[in-house]
C-alpha cells in the first residue's frame, strides 16, 4: 500500500516529514519536533527544538522539564519548514492539543495537504479549545475507539452521573474517589461539575499542579485542595477526590476508608472492562473521538486517503476500504519487539490503545507523573 515519497512517514523515531525536516511526536532523538499535545505518549523530551501550540507550552514545561527549548505557535499561524508550510489547529482532546496540518510547497505535488490529528474529540469540552475541522488530501487519524459500540453521551450528562454518585456517597458518609487521567480528564470533570456545585474537590499530588496550570490558562473549574499527605486528621467522608488510575489499589488509598471508587474512561462503555478493574462505578467519559465522531470527521475532511496511527485500526480501515476510501494502518515498527529496552511511552500507549484492557491514559499517566518530593507513600508507580 505504501506510496512513493509520502509527505509524512511512520519511522522508528516518529512521524517524519522529510520535505519539512521535522518529526511529529517523536520518541527517539531528533533535531526538530512538532508536538500535538502534552500527554506522555506524544510528548517526550527528545528534540533539540520543540514546537507546540501556545496553550500547550506550560503543560509541556511541567512535564518535560524547564531545560527544553519550546516554541509556542498560534492557532493557524503558518510556519515554513523546508519545502512545507505547517500550522496547528485545535484537536479538542486536552488543553492545547493540536492537529498538525502540513502542506507541500515545492515539487510536482506542491499544494498537497496532510493532517495528523494526534488525539482528538468532537464533543464539547469546557476545559479546552474546540476541535477545528481542517480539510486535507491525506488524513492521519487516531482510532482508539474505532468500534461501533463506542458512542459517547455529552460530557454534561456523564458529569451529572458523577455528581449523583458523589451525592449518594455523601449521604452514606463515604469518600468518593474518582480515577481519571491527571492531565485533561481530571480538569474536564472539574469544569463540567461547575454546573452542579461549587464545593471544593480534593486532588491527588499528580493532579493538583496540572489543574493549577489549567486555572492559570483561565479554565473555570471547581475549587480544589491538594491532599495534604502529612495531615491525617482530614475527614474525607462525603468528599470527592480525584486521582490518577495508578493510585488505585495503592497504599495511598488507605487514607480513604470505605471509599467508593469510580473510573472515568471510554473503555468503561464495555462491562467486561468495568468488572475486570474492580471499580465500583465506571463513567463513560473519553477525550477521544467516538465511532460516529471518527466516521463523521473522516468524511468531513474530504480526504481521499486515510491512515490510522493507533487503536482498533483494522476494523476502521476495512470499513473505509469497503466504502471506497483508500485507507491503511500506518505500520509501527517500534511495537514489533517487546524485549527492547527502549520501551517508550508511545509504545506502551500504542499497545494500550489497541487494547481495551489497559487504558492508554493509565499507562501514559503512570509513566509521566513522578511523585512530588517529600511524599513517601505517594503512589504513581506503575
Amino acid at each position, binding site marked *: 500500500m505504501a506510496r512513493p515519497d509520502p509527505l509524512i512517514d511512520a519511522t522508528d523515531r516518529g512521524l517524519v516529514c522529510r520535505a519539512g525536516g521535522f518529526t511529529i511526536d517523536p520518541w527517539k532523538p531528533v533535531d526538530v519536533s512538532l508536538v500535538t499535545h502534552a500527554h506522555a505518549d506524544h510528548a517526550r523530551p527528545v528534540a533539540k527544538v520543540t514546537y507546540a501550540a501556545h496553550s500547550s507550552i506550560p503543560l509541556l514545561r511541567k512535564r518535560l522539564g524547564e531545560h527544553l527549548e519550546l516554541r509556542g505557535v498560534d492557532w493557524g499561524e503558518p510556519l515554513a519548514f523546508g519545502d512545507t508550510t505547517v500550522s496547528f489547529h485545535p484537536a479538542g482532546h486536552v488543553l492545547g492539543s493540536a492537529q498538525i496540518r502540513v502542506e507541500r510547497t515545492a515539487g510536482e505535488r506542491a499544494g498537497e495537504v496532510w493532517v495528523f490529528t494526534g488525539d482528538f474529540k468532537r464533543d464539547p469540552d469546557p476545559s479546552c479549545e474546540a476541535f477545528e475541522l481542517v480539510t486535507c488530501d491525506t488524513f492521519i487519524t487516531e482510532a482508539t475507539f474505532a468500534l*461501533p*459500540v463506542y458512542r459517547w453521551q455529552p460530557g454534561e450528562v456523564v458529569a451529572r452521573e458523577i455528581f449523583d454518585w458523589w451525592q449518594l456517597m455523601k449521604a452514606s458518609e463515604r469518600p468518593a474517589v474518582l480515577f481519571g487521567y491527571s492531565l485533561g480528564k481530571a480538569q474536564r470533570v472539574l469544569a463540567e461539575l461547575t454546573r452542579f456545585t461549587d464545593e471544593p474537590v480534593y486532588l491527588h499530588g499528580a493532579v493538583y499542579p496540572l489543574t493549577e496550570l489549567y486555572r492559570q490558562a483561565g479554565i473555570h473549574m471547581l475549587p480544589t485542595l491538594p491532599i495534604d499527605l502529612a495531615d491525617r486528621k482530614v475527614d474525607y467522608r462525603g468528599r470527592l477526590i480525584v486521582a490518577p488510575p495508578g493510585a488505585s489499589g495503592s497504599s495511598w488509598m488507605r487514607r480513604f476508608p470505605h471509599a467508593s471508587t469510580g473510573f472515568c474512561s471510554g473503555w468503561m462503555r464495555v*462491562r*467486561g472492562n468495568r468488572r475486570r478493574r474492580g471499580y*465500583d462505578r465506571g463513567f463513560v467519559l473519553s477525550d477521544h473521538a467516538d465511532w460516529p465522531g471518527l466516521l463523521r470527521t473522516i468524511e468531513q475532511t474530504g480526504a481521499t486517503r486515510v491512515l490510522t496511527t493507533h487503536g482498533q485500526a483494522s476494523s476502521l480501515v*476495512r*470499513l473505509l476500504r469497503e466504502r471506497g476510501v483508500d485507507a491503511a494502518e500506518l505500520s509501527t515498527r517500534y511495537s514489533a519487539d517487546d524485549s527492547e529496552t527502549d520501551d517508550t511511552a508511545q509504545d506502551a500507549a500504542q*499497545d494500550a490503545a489497541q487494547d481495551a484492557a489497559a487504558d492508554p491514559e493509565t499507562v501514559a499517566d503512570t509513566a509521566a507523573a513522578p511523585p512530588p518530593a517529600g511524599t513517601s507513600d505517594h503512589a504513581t508507580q506503575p
Partner: protein
Amino acid sequence: MYAFSRLYQTLDQTTSTNAKVAAMVDYFRDADPRDAAWAVYFLSGRRIKRLVGSALLRQWLTELSELPGWLVEDTYASVGDMAETIALLLTRAGDSAEQLSLAEWVETRLLPLRGLDASEQRAIVTGWWAGQSYEQCYIVTKLLTGSLRVGVSQVLLARAIAQTAELPRQSILHRLMGEWQATPAFYRALIAEDDGEAALSRPYPFCLAAPLDDAPGLDAADDAQQVAAALGSPHDWQAEWKWDGIRSQLVRRQGQTFLWSRGEELIGTRFPEVATTGDELPDGCVLDGEILPWNEAGILPFAQLQRRIGRKTVGRKLLGEVPCVFLAYDLLEQDGEDIRERPMRERRERLEALVAAHRATLADGAAHTLRVSERVIADDWASLATLRAGSRERLVEGLMLKRQDSAYGTGRQRGLWWKWKIEPHTVDAVMLYAQAGHGRRSNLFTDYTFGVWDGDTLVPFAKAYSGLNNKEIDRLDKWIRRNTIERFGPVRSVALEQVFELAFEGINRSTRHKSGIAVRFPRIVRWREDLGTEDADTLDDVKRLIEDGGEGANAS
C-alpha cells in the same frame, strides 16, 4: 422489571458483598412473590432453556444495526458478550423503560417465544430491542440467551433471603437445593417459618474440602513433618482416597430414589444401576459419595466414565462395558433425621453398618454397586505420605483428610476437611493460539492453545485458561497483539516463542484429538521465559506419562 434491572445494576456496580446483600434485601422486601421467585431463580444461577439461538440473534443484530456482518463479529469479539453487544449497538440513551414486572416479562413474553417460528420470533424480539433502555435491553436479551451471571454466589443470595425472612441461612441454602419451579408458592415456602413437608427429593448442600496447601503454616504439602505440625495426630483424622468421578448424593425417601450431581442435576436415568441400588435402601436416608466406573477388576480410567457422562440414557452395551458404582463417603440422613451435625466418626460407623446390612440382602454374585469408600489407615503422616505417593497407580488423586469430630458442613471447610492431592503432571509447551476471553476477561487474550514437539512440528495438545496472575495476563496480552501471525475469526496464531509449564490431572489416549492424547484440567503453572521453544517437551514425553499412569490399575 425495572426493579430487577435496578437490582442487577447495583449488584454489578459494587464489589462489596455487604452492599450486594443489602441491595438484594431491599429488592426482596418489596418484591411481589411472583417476581421474587424468578429473581431467586436467576440469581441462583438457574436459567431458562435457551429460547433463541445465538446465530439468529447475530443475524438480527446485523440486519438492524445496518453494519457489515464482519464488523458485528469484530465488535462482538471485542465486547465478549452477545446481549451486551446488542444493547450497546441498538439502544440509544433516554429510551423509556416499560412498566412490566419481571414475572410478566418471563411468563408472558419470553417463555411463549418457544414454539414460534424464526420470523415470528424475529418480529417480537427486535421489537423489544428497539424500544428499551440499555439496561432493560441487556437484561431481557441475557434472559433470552439463557444466562444471567451477576457475581452473586448461592451463599450470598441465601444470606439476603435469610435476612429478609429472618431465618437461618442454612435452611435457605437447603431449600434452594434441587429442582423447583419459580412460582409464588415456591417463594412463599422459601421464606416461610416452616416450609411444611421438606421437599421430598431435596439433597443437602455438599460439604467440600479445601486444598491442604492452604492450611496455615504449610508451604510444602509434600513435607510430612510440616503436615504433622499443621494437623496434629493422624488418629484425629479419617483418611480416604480422593476419587475422581462424579460427586453425588443418593436420596431415598418415601419409597422414591433421587440421584443428584453436585451441579444439582438429577442423574438417576444416566446411572440406572446406581439408582436401582438406591431403591433397596431403607427410607429416610441420604448418602454422599462418588459415582465411579468400576468393574469386577476394579476402578476404570476416568476416560471410561466420560463415555457415560452426557448421555441421557445408556444402552445395554455401554452399561456392560462401563458399569458404575456409588462409592459412599458419608451418611447425612438416617431414619428421616438430619445427622449432619453428628461427628464424622459416628456418621462413618452408621454408614458402614447401613451398607453392610444392604449387602446382606444381596444374592450371591450380585454386583456390589453400593460400596463404602475405603479408609486409609496409618500410624503416622510419613506412612500416609508414602501411600499418597502411590495414588496415580490406584487411579486416585491423592488423599482426603476429614477430622474425626467434624460435622458435615455447608460449602468449603477449611480446617476440618482437607484434600491432599498429589502433584500434577507437568509439561513444557509452546503457545500456538490465543483467543479473547468472555465476561470480565473480554477484550483480553486469556484462552490459549499449547503444543508440544512431534518431530519438527508443534502439535496442539491442550487448551488452558488460568494460572497466570493479572499482571502476567496483561503482559502476555500485549505480547500476543504484537506477535499475531494470522487471525482466524476470534482466534490468533502467534509467533512460536513463548513456553509455559502446564499441569494437568490425567492423561488418556484419544482419537478425537490431533495429538492422539487428551488431558484433564490443564492449567498454566508458570510462564517459562527462561526456556526456548527447543526446550519444550515432545509428544513422546507426554505419551510416556500415559504409561506411567498404569491404565487399568486395580484399586479395589
